[in-house]
């Protein structure tokens, strides 16, 4: 197998020459892992330089799921991009919907209603719960623990059931709209929500019982995949990875959007930034998200009101008015055939997604088609320092470390 010489780092070559203590002739070995490997969920290729079982260096090759997300968005109307955002992070589609729609709203200066914001928070947090459960559950699976994975998946199913009640789909939700959401929650939602939240808490307790102090699990995670606070910042790492390294940075607190400043929740942080800290942070964040979901459900039950913004540029007029009034009929026709015209300008808006800062940088030339849609993908940016996390570690530690980075191909490769 031919491997380009540039993959052998200078450091590795030096190390081999300095290997004078031993008379044993050793050679570094190049191992190709992926792009489709059963132990790495996500289509990504690692070219690993190994010294025995230790990782000397690693080249991460991404792009296998590249499908031209940004190019597609730049050829349809502003609305047509929303279903594509579902496919960015298929574990937490609503958060991607939300990031895009809020960036368009910033550009159009649309102010959404209070009820809409609460609905967005509930649906977004359910998405986050599903994402974190996948990450924590899959970590167990990769360390050969099947049962807790099933606890995690069962809990995720409960969160996705709630998502289904809200928007009719479990995974590709397509729930958030520019200036609103697809529709208000059905009357049955609060009761089912409380029931499912209690069930998820019970499953998390089971999960905690078998994993958090499990000797094998702790030994495999503690002290592996270490990334310092300073390196996190230099590599622009955000989300649970940054918080596990001890930086209390969460956009829901530092730059509150929607109604997060009115809700009571905490930001867990780790102390050293290894995989075990990441596990603890992720699990605690699920508990905090459950608290948010409960608070929002209570509020939504007590405060009925309009959901969509009353702005003819982005939301259709009520059907009764469309059938009886000329202006509204024209407006509906224009909305369907052209979609919203977004004033010329540029805007960047970021939300705290399950993986970190999910930002959208949009440029409009004043027409109904976006000029530029840039998604700042936390998956890709958090993946970049992976070689730093695993250099010197055993090959087997790459698997759980990669899991906690939680690279999602759809978002990473776009």
């Amino acid at each position, binding site marked *: *197998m*031919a*491997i380009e010489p*540039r993959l052998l780092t200078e450091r590795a070559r030096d190390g081999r020459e300095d290997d004078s203590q031993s008379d044993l002739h050793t050679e570094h070995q190049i191992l190709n892992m992926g792009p489709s490997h059963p132990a790495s969920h996500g289509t990504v290729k690692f070219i690993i330089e190994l010294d025995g079982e230790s990782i000397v260096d690693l080249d991460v090759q*991404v*792009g296998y799921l*590249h499908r*031209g997300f*940004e*190019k*597609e968005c730049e*050829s349809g109307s502003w609305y047509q991009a929303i279903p594509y955002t579902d496919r960015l992070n298929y574990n937490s589609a609503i958060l991607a919907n939300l990031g895009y729609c809020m960036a368009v709203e*910033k*550009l159009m*200066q649309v102010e959404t209603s209070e009820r809409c914001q609460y609905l967005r928070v509930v649906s977004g947090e359910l998405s986050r719960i599903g994402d974190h459960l996948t990450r924590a559950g899959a970590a167990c699976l990769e360390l050969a623990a099947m049962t807790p994975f099933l606890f995690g998946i069962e809990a995720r199913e409960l969160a996705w059931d709630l998502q289904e009640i809200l928007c009719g789909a479990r995974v590709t939700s397509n729930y958030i709209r520019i200036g609103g959401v697809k529709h208000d929650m059905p009357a049955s939602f609060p009761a089912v929500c409380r029931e499912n939240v209690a069930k998820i808490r019970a499953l998390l307790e089971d999960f905690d019982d078998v994993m958090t102090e499990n000797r094998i699990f702790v030994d495999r995670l503690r002290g592996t995949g270490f990334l310092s606070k300073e390196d996190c*910042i*230099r*590599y*622009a790492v955000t989300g649970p990875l940054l918080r596990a390294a001890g*930086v209390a*940075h969460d956009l829901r607190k*530092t*730059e509150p959007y929607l109604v997060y400043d009115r809700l009571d929740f905490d930001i867990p942080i780790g102390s050293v930034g290894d995989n075990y800290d990441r596990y603890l942070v992720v699990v605690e964040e699920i508990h905090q998200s459950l608290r948010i979901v409960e608070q929002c459900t209570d509020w939504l039950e007590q405060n009925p009101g309009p959901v969509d913004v009353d702005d003819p540029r982005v939301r259709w007029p009520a059907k009764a008015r469309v059938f009886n009034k000329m202006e509204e009929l024209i407006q509906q026709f224009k909305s369907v055939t052209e979609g919203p015209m977004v004033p010329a*300008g*540029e*805007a*960047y808006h*970021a939300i705290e997604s399950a993986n970190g*800062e999910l*930002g959208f*940088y949009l*440029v409009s030339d004043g027409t109904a088609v976006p*000029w*530029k849609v*840039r998604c*700042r993908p936390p998956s*890709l*940016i958090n993946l*970049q*320092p992976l070689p730093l996390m695993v250099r010197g570690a055993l090959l087997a530690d790459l698997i759980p470390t990669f899991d906690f980075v939680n690279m999602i191909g759809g978002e990473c*490769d*776009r």
Partner: protein
Amino acid sequence: MEDHGSEALRRLIGGLPEAVRETHARLGDATAVVDASRIAEVLHFLRDTPGLDFDVLVDLTAVDYLGQAPRFEVVYHLCSLKHNHRVRIKARVSEDAPEIDSATSVWPAANWMEREVWDLYGIGFRGHPDLRRLLLYEEFEGHPLRKDYPKEKRQPLVGPRN
């Protein structure tokens, strides 16, 4: 040059007055267009000046303004964890010489972001340690996010070389 009430813009204009071409703060995003030849200096200044401390390169991307001169704009979004403020820096790059200094010496995070911009827009970064395509494969011809690259264009997918 106006600072639009932004501390970052005020200090940038004060510290490097000749490097800043124009500023705005529309929709609350403090933005400065700077001289592309001095981008490294500007980024170092923003990172190292006490009171600014832009320690995180949040995002680096480009925009193709086909039909305008200069055609491309490289866009940097910076954030300071210490002071919790943000700024957007833009630098215009011409079509004839689509090149700009790399930011990898300021933030290693720029490495993959610049590789992506090279891959999709064909803008080169001087001083980048390893400027390969990031998302597409090496045999791919052209840079698909350029506005003159047709969306429907298909290319053969070249398999592994070995």
